[in-house]
């Protein structure tokens, strides 16, 4: 089933023509943004130099750090009276990245989500529970809009209160569920403890963090649904950029809205289908914040085989990150954010280690911090207060609860060259 069959199955010359037209429009919008004006000038190109899709390679990449430097509205290409929504996403330091949407943007975005949900069999008559964070996280409102668009009865259940969530699935006869895969696992366990019967469920859409085929099998068997992988990021609207079809073999990325490249993250060179590299996306339907050749930091590859469903070229399920970003309980965390939070606390040294574990399918973040011996008061109660203070500072910066352990000065490993402060011990 298709939401927009023409666009979803657009191939070959017709697709390329549309992409080029929309790319040119996007480039012209970027010229309202100081960053892009300067980029074009520095690269010695003008918008009229981009005459073919191949010419895209003349344009330098845009990185997340660039967006951060534009905080808050440096990348806005439209006046504020055309902005209809603002979300933020975690950045590499204390400052978030701002993403803004025009009315058309919100419409385009919800249309993409409508495609995805229709693709996995949801339609009017389905009761759809959206168990994601409804605040600044785009997974809440984004998925919600798309599910409403296709006519589902949407239950905006948000996160937490798992028993109530399970009761609603049972009592309402919920058929579609959206949440992070780790929350789905948690929900499964609680449902089993409650001996709840969730047989109404038929479709689960899970995204915002990496999950394995084993986890898919587990979720499908225990929840009695088909589990689909969802990919997106706030910089590219939010969730809905790419999504699995019923084949459950790779994600369809919407080529009429996103020009996809895979590059070698070290050299920046373009790679061919079947070669693993960093996903670079040029969104060509964004108005409020157009980006060119945005480096997602996600490692994937373009898949070679055509999909029996008739839609366009797929990307493989996400294979990791090209930078040091971690996704913990669906939230993006950069070690530099942790460093930044700790730097503002004089009682701790500049040495820390980060451990990520998965305990009962939940991500656990533990941070070991060296005491600063110059400011140690000698009092135990000061240490306990310090520990609480660090937990609070990390919570404020990361929106995540971390366990903090104070360790002796000099006891953590020292690094020559690039520090490896993060040990991800999760077995997904």
């Amino acid at each position, binding site marked *: 089933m298709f939401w927009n069959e023409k666009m979803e199955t657009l191939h070959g010359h017709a697709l390329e023509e549309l992409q080029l037209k929309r790319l040119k429009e996007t480039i012209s919008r970027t010229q309202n943004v100081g960053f892009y004006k300067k980029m074009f000038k520095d690269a010695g190109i003008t918008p009229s130099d981009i005459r073919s899709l191949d010419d895209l390679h003349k344009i330098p990449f845009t990185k997340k750090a660039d967006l951060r430097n534009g905080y808050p509205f440096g990348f806005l290409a439209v006046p504020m009276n055309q902005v209809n929504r603002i979300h933020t996403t975690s950045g590499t330091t204390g400052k978030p990245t701002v993403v803004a949407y025009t009315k058309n943007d919100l419409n385009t975005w919800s249309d993409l989500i409508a495609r995805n949900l229709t693709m996995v069999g949801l339609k009017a008559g389905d009761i759809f529970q959206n168990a994601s964070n409804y605040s600044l996280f785009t997974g809440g409102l984004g998925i919600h809009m798309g599910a409403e668009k296709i006519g589902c009865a949407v239950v905006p259940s948000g996160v937490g209160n798992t028993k109530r969530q399970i009761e609603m699935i049972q009592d309402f006869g919920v058929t579609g569920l959206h949440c992070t895969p780790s929350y789905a696992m948690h929900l499964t366990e609680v449902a089993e403890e409650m001996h709840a019967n969730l047989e109404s469920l038929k479709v689960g859409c899970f995204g915002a963090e990496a999950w394995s085929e084993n986890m898919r099998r587990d979720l499908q068997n225990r929840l009695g649904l088909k589990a689909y992988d969802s990919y997106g990021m706030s910089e590219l609207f939010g969730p809905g950029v790419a999504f699995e079809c019923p084949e459950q073999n790779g994600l369809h990325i919407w080529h009429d809205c996103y020009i996809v490249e895979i590059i070698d993250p070290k050299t920046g060179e373009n790679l061919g289908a079947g070669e693993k590299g960093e996903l670079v996306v040029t969104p060509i339907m964004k108005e409020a914040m157009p980006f060119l050749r945005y480096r997602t930091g996600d490692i994937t590859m373009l898949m070679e085989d055509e999909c029996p469903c008739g839609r366009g070229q797929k990307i493989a399920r996400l294979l990791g990150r090209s930078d040091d970003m971690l996704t913990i309980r669906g939230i993006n965390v950069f070690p530099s954010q942790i460093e930044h939070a700790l730097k503002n606390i004089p009682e701790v040294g500049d040495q820390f280690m980060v451990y990520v574990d998965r305990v009962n399918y939940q991500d656990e973040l533990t941070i070991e911090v060296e005491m600063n*011996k110059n400011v140690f008061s000698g009092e135990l109660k000061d240490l*306990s207060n310090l520990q609480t203070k660090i937990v609070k500072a990390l919570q404020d910066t990361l929106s995540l609860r971390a366990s903090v*352990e104070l360790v*002796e000065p000099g006891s953590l490993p020292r690094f020559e060259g690039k520090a490896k402060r993060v040990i991800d011990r999760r077995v997904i």
Partner: protein
Amino acid sequence: MTEKYIIKQLSIFSENKAGKLAAIAKIFLDTGVSIQAFNIAEANNFGVVRAIVDKPEIAFNEFAKQNYALQYTDVLAIKMKDVPGGLYEVANLLGGLGINIEYAYAFRTGAYGALIVKVTNPRAAAQKIIDAGLELLPAKDYNF
């Protein structure tokens, strides 16, 4: 003059891990510093080792050299009668004097025991304690 009653306790930050206490004890041994009173306060995964020793500067320098986080803490040592109720007498009196004890630990040696107390203002507290008729052990008598 209460200055002579101010005892320099070593307060050493330590993780609660196997071997950590032994490592600390080894430093006292290697520096030939003898421990008069000793106490460990723990919270979560860390603690503070408190020690009263005969040569605090020597110990302090060696711990600092070995990268420990440590601090001197001013404490008082109140002599307790070695009879039942000795602790009660001291504690009751301190309460009556309005002296707030942040923490305390007892030890005994030979003929008498003593209560090591950390109070908010040790110099003023020392005067009150002496005026009330209790005996404080002076710092020079670390080997009480």
